[in-house]
């Protein structure tokens, strides 16, 4: 904690006086003030997504209920329902699914890198990092607040998608373990969102330029996701849904913690 730029009088209090508690309300205000564009966009996008998914999901479930109670299944009327379900409904379901899959990295690309890189680029770090709270805790508080502002909505979205997509698991030959379904259900989706955000923050601190860090974040995330899909997942020690979910969420959480640690270490080392 040697990096604290505490006022001189605090030095007189002796080594026994630990750092003061983090002023969370203050940091909440600072985070909101610095990232309000992002936070408003995420909130609006979240509300629109939830509304859209509810409307689409209710229709899909309605159509599926009609289809599954239709007798006899070979009749022309039932065939018509089936055709509609496997074309129009399935098409919309796929569209929602792809959009949800792309969302974490696209949001994290805009949320992560600016946390440190924009302070450096705009030179506001000279002011921000010399406050009483200290630069490490300043950054840690912003990461914690922004991280939760992304991960909690992501968790809600993934649960909503699981509900919306459930009928297709029965009609389209998919299972819980199909990579695209696995990624967007359970704990994995929230964990991937978190890791994307932490990756962005770390690369922002490393590259020190927002735009470049955004591009690198995108590339690294795609690389990590591809590696997981085509290699790592085949080598998990567990093979059923919930153990696999916990295992994947676990290592993603550890990776996120390491990336946050790396970010704070870079912030601490940076010569102000």
């Amino acid at each position: 904690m040697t990096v604290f730029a505490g006022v001189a009088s605090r030095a007189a209090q002796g080594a026994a006086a630990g750092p003061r508690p983090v002023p969370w309300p203050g940091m909440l205000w600072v985070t909101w003030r610095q990232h309000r564009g992002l936070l408003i966009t995420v909130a609006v996008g979240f509300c629109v997504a939830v509304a859209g998914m509810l409307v689409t999901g209710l229709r899909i479930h309605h159509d599926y209920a009609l289809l599954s109670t239709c007798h006899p299944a070979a009749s022309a009327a039932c065939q018509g329902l089936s055709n509609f379900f496997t074309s129009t409904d399935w098409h919309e379901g796929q569209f929602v699914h792809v959009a949800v899959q792309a969302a974490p990295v696209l949001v994290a690309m805009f949320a992560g890198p600016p946390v440190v890189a924009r302070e450096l680029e705009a030179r506001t770090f000279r002011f921000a990092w010399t406050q009483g709270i200290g630069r490490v805790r300043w950054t840690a508080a912003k990461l914690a607040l922004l991280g939760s502002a992304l991960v909690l909505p992501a968790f809600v979205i993934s649960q909503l998608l699981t509900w919306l997509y459930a009928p297709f698991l029965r009609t389209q030959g998919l299972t819980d373990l199909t990579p695209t379904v696995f990624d967007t259900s359970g704990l994995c989706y929230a964990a991937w969102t978190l890791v994307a955000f932490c990756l962005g923050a770390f690369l922002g601190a490393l590259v020190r330029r927002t735009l470049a860090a955004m591009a690198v974040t995108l590339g690294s995330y795609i690389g990590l996701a591809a590696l997981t899909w085509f290699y790592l997942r085949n080598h998990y020690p567990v093979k059923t849904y919930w153990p696999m979910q916990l295992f994947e969420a676990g290592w993603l959480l550890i990776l996120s913690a390491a990336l946050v640690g790396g970010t704070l270490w870079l912030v601490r080392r940076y010569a102000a």
Partner: protein
Amino acid sequence: MSVLTLPAQPGQQTAPPPPPVPWRRMVWVTWRQHRATLISVPAVLAAVAVFLVIFGLKAHHDYAALVHCSLNQGQQTQACAQAFRTFNSSDWPLANTCSILMQLAPVLIGAFAGAPLLARELETGTFRFAWTQGVGRERLAIAKLALLAVTLVVLAGAFGELFSWFFQPFLWTEEMNRLTETVFDTSGIVFPAFTLVAFAIGAFLGMLFRRVIPALAATLGVYLAVRLVAWGVRKYYPVAVVTGNTKIFSQFQTPRVPGYPWILSSWVTGPGGQAASPSVANQILNGPPGGSIPPGYTEWNRWIPLSHYWPMQFIEAGWLLVLSIALFAATVSLVRRRAA
């Protein structure tokens, strides 16, 4: 041309014509300011291209085995069934991932190249220097837009061709064709056209917002809207044909000619030409392809044959090009009007 900051030349009654554009210098300036983009975009595309060639050769090889199987032995034999399983479980997931990334490629390239083009000059204040050079701010903007646009379109065109070759084996097994939205968008001249329009949207929004990151985010949204509009209007292009059949429309495909035609709408008329009753119509429309139809009834289809791929490509690339040019013009007009 009133904005040119030429030195005053007393004694001349009328303003002299502006000096010719120093294109070679403009190339240098563009390169110098955007070398990160101009290096990283081709480098990333080249790396992905190497992967696509290697993986594509394997996919084409596996596909040739499949075609051989189904033409000679049918799909019944053990070896053929195994070949199909391998193709669907190992080749297709990777190709599908590539296809999804390929959908994002135009907007990512376009937004990262377009949004900072003018917004960064305004954000960092370098526009005060850049825009007061003898060449003039409009011609500076036009030169940068044109040089980057041409570079991106050429790169995207070449990359799209490579991807189309790579993706070709999967059309048949995944029941797609060249008119399927995601395939149509990533092939021919439509793929570079989407890249161009993404770049134009980025440049325009960058000049409008004057800040890089918000412009970049907005570009993603606006591009998505353009793409959805394109998907929505595509079926109204004047390329569809209407045919009446006395057998149920046969949607055949072979490994050599993959894909069904795109059927926009179907309806049934009874004897005498009036619309058939819903129950008969349903029976015919949902009947097996190639099946017989009761005498006197006709099944009508409004559909787009696969052979109309190129007219559709030209129509779509055409309006995307017009939209891009309009956005470039709006961008230059904003540059002209911005008080330096």
